[in-house]
């Protein structure tokens, strides 16, 4: 099985603070990897490095055949293959849900307006928001906005989807609708990496769990690993979550 | 052919003082009238409120140049044959400044949260007390940066007083130009004078603005 994503000995610091201290892990095609850990463990930074939002100092990152660590990386080519969803949705406030989704396919893939609209309707239907196409972000709930953001990424037909604590800003009842969409995606065979605090979701959906601690991968294994932690740190972390 | 000399520079310096003097008149006069208009704008009486709004609309909707012409010729109609230029210019700029300051200050007074009015009312203060003791002290702080910023507009607009024959910087520049005809050089120097007056005000206004924003955060 060829890896879609592989990180090898990745180092990253912000000023004097060492955030990633030799991180290595792989994610294969169709896998759903949940990256967990305390805040400050470097999990969000690792995710941002995968999408070249942060430069790394040492190590290699290969994503869908792109050498992300290479200074000569073609970022736009990388972004065609990788979709990312943020904690704060980051929808464009002056565009409707549909226009938010149509923008990138028209700009980047030169789709016609009509094709882009068909595509938008398609992905909106997949996240269960077909009837909200003409709504502006401010008219949507947080959960709906996040689903539009997922749809916006999906419209670029990425080979890999990254989710950066996408439910952390949501009420518990809105969290469910977003997780449902993500679960559907996972079932559809999408390769996904998610940074999350939702342990039950990780347990249920993830094929791989990466527990990060102090800037390194402390423990990794299948979803069941959470029920049988090997290290005291993960035991404590899982215990604290429950 | 005569050229630009130290004498001309001295003349411009005097004119600069007149520019500053006229600006001060306009700011003080416009400030008083504008403050009254700002209060009228938020008066409980609908007629007073509307009258003030119309006044502001008219001042902000006509060029200062036309206002100056109207005063210049209007005073003549009233029977004064020779209007002192400083009077026409002072009155014109005062009216102009009042129209804009009224609107700036109204905005500042209204930006004091409504709850402050209510709190003061609940303490059984009269309208006058509420205004002078609670609202205005807060509004003044908010209003200072934009008021200083507007001073720059006043200084620049005194240049139009030349049309009623008042000799300030621009008019002095024109006078010198008539004798030595070196317009580019002269008006660059005139511009430097204006810049020297306005830039410190602009900088001051900006730093006040920054402090205000920090204080609000």
């Amino acid at each position, binding site marked *: 099985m060829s890896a879609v994503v592989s990180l090898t000995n990745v180092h990253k610091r912000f000023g004097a603070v060492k955030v990633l201290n030799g991180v290595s892990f792989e994610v294969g095609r169709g896998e759903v990897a949940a990256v967990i850990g305390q805040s400050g463990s470097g999990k969000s930074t690792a995710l941002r490095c995968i*999408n070249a*939002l942060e430069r790394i100092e040492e190590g290699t990152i290969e994503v869908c055949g792109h050498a992300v660590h290479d200074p000569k990386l073609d*970022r*736009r080519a990388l*972004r*065609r293959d*990788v979709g990312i969803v*943020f904690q*704060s949705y*980051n*929808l*464009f*406030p*002056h*565009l*409707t849900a549909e226009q938010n989704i149509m*923008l*990138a396919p028209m*700009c*980047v893939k030169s789709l016609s307006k009509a094709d882009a609209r068909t595509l938008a309707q398609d992905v909106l239907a997949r996240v269960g928001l077909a009837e909200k196409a003409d709504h*502006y972000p*401010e*008219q949507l709930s947080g959960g709906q906005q996040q689903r539009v953001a997922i749809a*916006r*990424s999906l419209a*670029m037909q990425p080979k890999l989807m990254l989710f950066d604590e996408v439910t952390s800003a949501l009420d518990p009842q809105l969290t469910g609708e977003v997780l449902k969409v993500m679960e559907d995606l996972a079932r559809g065979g999408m390769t996904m990496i998610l940074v999350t605090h939702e342990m039950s979701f990780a347990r249920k959906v993830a094929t791989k769990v990466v527990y990060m601690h102090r800037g390194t991968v402390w423990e990794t294994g299948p979803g069941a690993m959470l029920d049988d932690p090997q290290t005291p740190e993960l035991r404590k972390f899982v215990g604290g979550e429950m | 052919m005569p050229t630009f000399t130290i004498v001309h520079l001295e003349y411009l310096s005097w004119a600069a003082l007149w520019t500053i003097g006229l600006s001060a008149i306009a700011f003080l006069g416009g400030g008083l009238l504008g403050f009254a208009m700002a209060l009228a704008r938020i008066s409980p009486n609908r007629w007073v409120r509307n009258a003030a709004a119309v006044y502001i*609309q*008219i001042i902000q*909707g*006509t*060029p200062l*140049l*036309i206002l100056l*012409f*109207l005063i210049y*010729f209007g005073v*003549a*109609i*009233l*029977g004064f044959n020779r209007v002192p230029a400083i009077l026409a210019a002072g009155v014109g700029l005062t009216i102009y400044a009042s129209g804009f300051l009224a609107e700036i200050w109204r905005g500042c007074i209204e930006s004091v949260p409504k709850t402050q009015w209510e709190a003061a009312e609940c303490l059984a203060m009269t309208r006058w007390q509420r205004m002078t003791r609670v609202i205005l002290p807060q509004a003044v702080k908010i209003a200072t940066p934009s008021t200083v910023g507007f001073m*720059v507009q006043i200084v*620049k*607009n005194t*240049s*139009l007083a*030349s*049309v009623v024959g008042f000799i300030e910087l*621009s008019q002095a*520049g024109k006078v010198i*130009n008539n004798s030595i005809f070196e*317009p*580019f050089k002269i*008006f*660059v120097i005139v*511009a430097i004078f*204006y*810049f020297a007056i*306005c*830039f410190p005000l*602009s900088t001051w206004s900006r730093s006040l603005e920054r402090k205000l924003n920090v204080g609000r955060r």
Partner: protein
Amino acid sequence: MSYRFDFLALLPYWREFALGVWLTLQLSAVATVLGFALGTLCAIGRADGSPWVRAVIATYVEVIRNTPLLVQIFLVYFGIATLGIHLSANFAAVAALVVNVGAYTCEIVRAGIESIHKAQLEAAECLGLSRVQTYWHVILRPAIERVYPALTSQYVLLMLASSITSQISAEELTAVANRIQSDTFRSFETYIVVGVLYLALSMVVRLGFMGFGLVAFVRRRKLGTPL
């Protein structure tokens, strides 16, 4: 007061007044469009240019904002003439107004650009948009929508300030008025009429901007909320 108002004396000049209104509208429209383009480019340069570009633009903005339009008009009109190029008064008027309003536009649009959250740029980047595409779709459009009211006020002021170009005898409403009053000796009445015309013009311009805003900013029209 023994003065007798005589507005009827001005009636034969209605064509001239109308022409003046039309010229002022033209002058301010051209200056607005070009000034907006210049100011927006400067705002982009100020936000994203090299240190050199930024310093040059900052200087330009400060110089313009701290000197009177009248002096700027003289400088353009006489200044370029000393270079041996003779400009028509109207051309000089447009040039001076554009340079002037460009500086104010730059400041306003820059404030708009700065109000766009960094996360928006990141989102656009992650969707694979190019810099130009990001600038247009994600930065400028919402930024301009946000500062549109400030721009409107600035361009109304510009229209009123265009009266100052009469000082170099550019063809516009105030210059027309100056001519009529010296023909008729009905100075006060003439400037009353012109004042009213400017008042009407400023309302028309404001309405025009409002209308344009409704067409250009669909979101605001539908929701009515500020961005």
